[in-house]
């Protein structure tokens, strides 16, 4: 009797343990809570883009459809020959700038349904705040285009239609810091968010370690100023992900400091 009981306990506990083990051996994804965002009129494009990027990949829930390319157009990679969303958004609706189009596409998603896709996108105002929506707009603009969202857009009185009819003149973003140390500049501009340097950063784009031995200083400079011109070998799938904002975001001195620093990494 005792033996039978022990065997039964063994089968029950073993089965439960197996299921627990299997569930813990797969990728672990937690559903994050959207963070409250509140931007002032002096918010920079980099801040908006960084916040939008976080929302896009987590609490905004965007990747559930836009990251797969089956339910909704992929926004981060090229759609045919049009380029990523930041490069094509300005041409979607005549008379509407990129940010106007993107903002309206989030609050009235079915008005701009892309051919071949079902009207499944919800009005994002149901789950995101106005500031969060604008952060997403900035992030999407940065995907192959120029970030034109400003604090004035976000804090404009009125919502919806009033905001979408705003002047679409691009406002250059200022430098994120007045640092001169290249490493500090790289960190302040979130470069290490996608490039690894001495173990720091995420391996989304080419690593910075030894980059000076692979490419010239001119190539590095051009890649920073015009990131969509050419994708590094092995990273073609992520062409267009790097935002084209650094020409406006870095001072000439900061740019040269960074270029020289990277060129010397061999």
């Amino acid at each position: 009797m005792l033996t039978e009981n022990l065997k039964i306990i063994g089968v029950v506990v073993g089965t439960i343990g197996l299921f627990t083990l299997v569930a813990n051996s797969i990728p672990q994804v937690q559903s994050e809570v959207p963070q409250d965002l509140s931007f002032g009129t002096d918010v920079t494009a980099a801040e908006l883009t960084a916040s939008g990027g976080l929302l896009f990949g987590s609490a905004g829930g965007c990747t559930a459809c836009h990251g797969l390319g089956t339910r909704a157009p992929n926004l981060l990679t090229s759609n045919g020959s049009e380029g990523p969303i930041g490069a094509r958004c300005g041409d979607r609706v005549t008379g509407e700038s990129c940010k106007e189009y993107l903002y309206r596409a989030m609050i009235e998603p079915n008005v701009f349904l892309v051919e071949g896709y079902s009207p499944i996108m919800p009005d994002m105002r149901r789950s995101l705040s106005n500031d969060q929506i604008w952060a997403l707009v900035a992030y999407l603009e940065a995907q192959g285009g120029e970030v034109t969202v400003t604090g004035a857009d976000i804090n404009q009185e009125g919502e919806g239609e009033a905001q979408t009819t705003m002047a679409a003149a691009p406002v250059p973003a200022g430098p994120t810091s007045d640092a001169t140390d290249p490493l500090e500049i790289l960190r302040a501009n979130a470069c290490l968010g996608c490039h690894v340097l001495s173990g720091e950063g995420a391996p989304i784009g080419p690593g910075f370690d030894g980059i000076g031995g692979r490419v010239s200083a001119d190539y590095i400079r051009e890649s920073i100023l015009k990131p969509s011109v050419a994708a590094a070998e092995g990273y073609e799938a992520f062409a267009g992900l790097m935002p084209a904002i650094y020409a406006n975001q870095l001072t000439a001195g900061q740019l040269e400091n960074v270029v020289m620093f990277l060129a010397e990494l061999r």
Partner: protein
Amino acid sequence: MATLAAATGKRKIKLNQNCGRSLFWPALAVFGIASQFASPDLLLAQSLEGVRQYGEFPLVGSRVAIWVAAQVHLLFAAFVLGVPMFAVVAEAVGIFGGDSKYDKLAKEFTRLLLVAYSATAIWGAILSFLLVTLYPGLWLYLTEIFQVSMWIYVCLFFFESFTLYLYYYGWDLWNTGRAKWVHWTLGILLNIWGTAVMFIANSWLTYMMSPPADVTPDTAPGMVQFWSAFANATWMPINIHRIIANVVFGGAIVGAYAAYRFLVARTDEERAHYDWMGYIGNLIAMGALIILPFAGYYLGREIYEFNQQMGITMMGGFMSWLWIIQAFLIGVLFLAGNYYLWVGMGRIPGAERFMPYTKYMLVVLVLGVMVWATPNTMIADREEIAAMGGTHHPFLGVLGVMSAKNTAVNLMILTTFLSFLLYRRANSRPTVDWARTGTIVQGALFVLASLIVVFYGVYGYFVPAIVRIGFSVYQVLAVLATIIGVITIDVFMLRGAESRGDIRWGQMPPRSQYALFILAVTFTWLMGLMGFARSGIRQHWHVWEVVRDTSEYAATPALGYAAIVISCCVLIFFTLVSFIFWLGGLAEKGTKASADSVAATSSTQGVS
């Protein structure tokens, strides 16, 4: 005025102060009617001020505490709702078929029910108290909307309890003639009360998933229309899904109970009885399991209809890996269920002629599980996408889509049904003159259904998604039609059939009984997993897009963490259920010893 949630700083919900405070019915009625016409300003004036929104539970935190309480309560509730359904059917088989062993079986089912019932109530009370103390804001919000249904719930629970006591304790007293019919009616009533109780509780939890479209964060709970909140979009799909799932779960737990009694049995008679009981439990569980995916499909479709984003979060968002785990669990269920049937054929004279086919059925089941468990729409970061060479794995992507998965699961259902059919036919030799034709027609139905399933599975790759979704309906209908058609032919074909020999009940190898334990554990764990899926798709909302979770536990945890909590719930459930079944066994022994003593005394007196 209390603020339940304000993610954007603009969304505020006002709670009414006067919910549940009335002293007598007329006042309640007057207030209830008046509150429907009260202006929001008036409601605001009456709203609560300074009420804390969340409590904290020591060691494990509020979320785990409420999670465990809800899950264990639900497991016991599923058992006490599922078992009466087949107890009353078994009693009816005993009445109409004149076979008293079914009546005995029904009574034994009900005895298990009786001992589990109090545990259900205790865990229900624990859940309520934890809700009140740990989530007082949400509790007040829900009571404001559902207070009337909560009173009705209590009444029905009262009726259910006393009907159960009458049903069980009156079993031997009302066992013949018209009294037996009255007793059977009590069994039906027990099911009606139980189902009504479940429907009411389901309305509360489904409201949290799918509140009516006109309810917004600014809607005061007292202004929410009761019936539209009660009969919300996912209410009926959940009702149907739970009814079937309760039967599956009840059958599996009864099977495990019988397996335990089989393994510790001391006499052949006892072993034969519990072998048969285990077979019935497995039959009920597997039979209901076959139709459960269709109910799940209906529920999933309604979730998508209610809110595409919620549906996508469930199937392709952060929960996408959950369905791979679900496929693994269901694979275990199909394999264990079929294994039990195949081993069981060893005690059936004539079954040896079918045994060679089992290896082919095993191949179909294993391949089906592999396809079903193939990932498709995963959230992948850029590094993972680069490693795969694209958003879809080049080799596995083709098997991870719904066309392949639907085809696999339908073929697995057909295979399991074939196992059952062979088991059923094993010791019978049909005597009707159309037996050969009937068998050929049955075979043709299987082939036709398989062809339809495979055809639409392959065709699905060449049509748009909106067309492809419709194909799954044709596949399901083909399988259902085959099951109904084949079993109908079989019933008529086996009328008056010769027996190839009696089933040798009790002559089962012990390993078959462990398969029943695995089935019970897997069903229980699966219920926990699906509970997490249903609740987790609300993400950081207590009530979807209406009441936001602003507690420190608002983020929905990853599957690994959830698995640990689910495993704890399953262990708690099995520990408690073992204990109360052991208690039930003690009572049975006591009754038997008393009966033996009375018989011995009577015998002695007769001699003297």
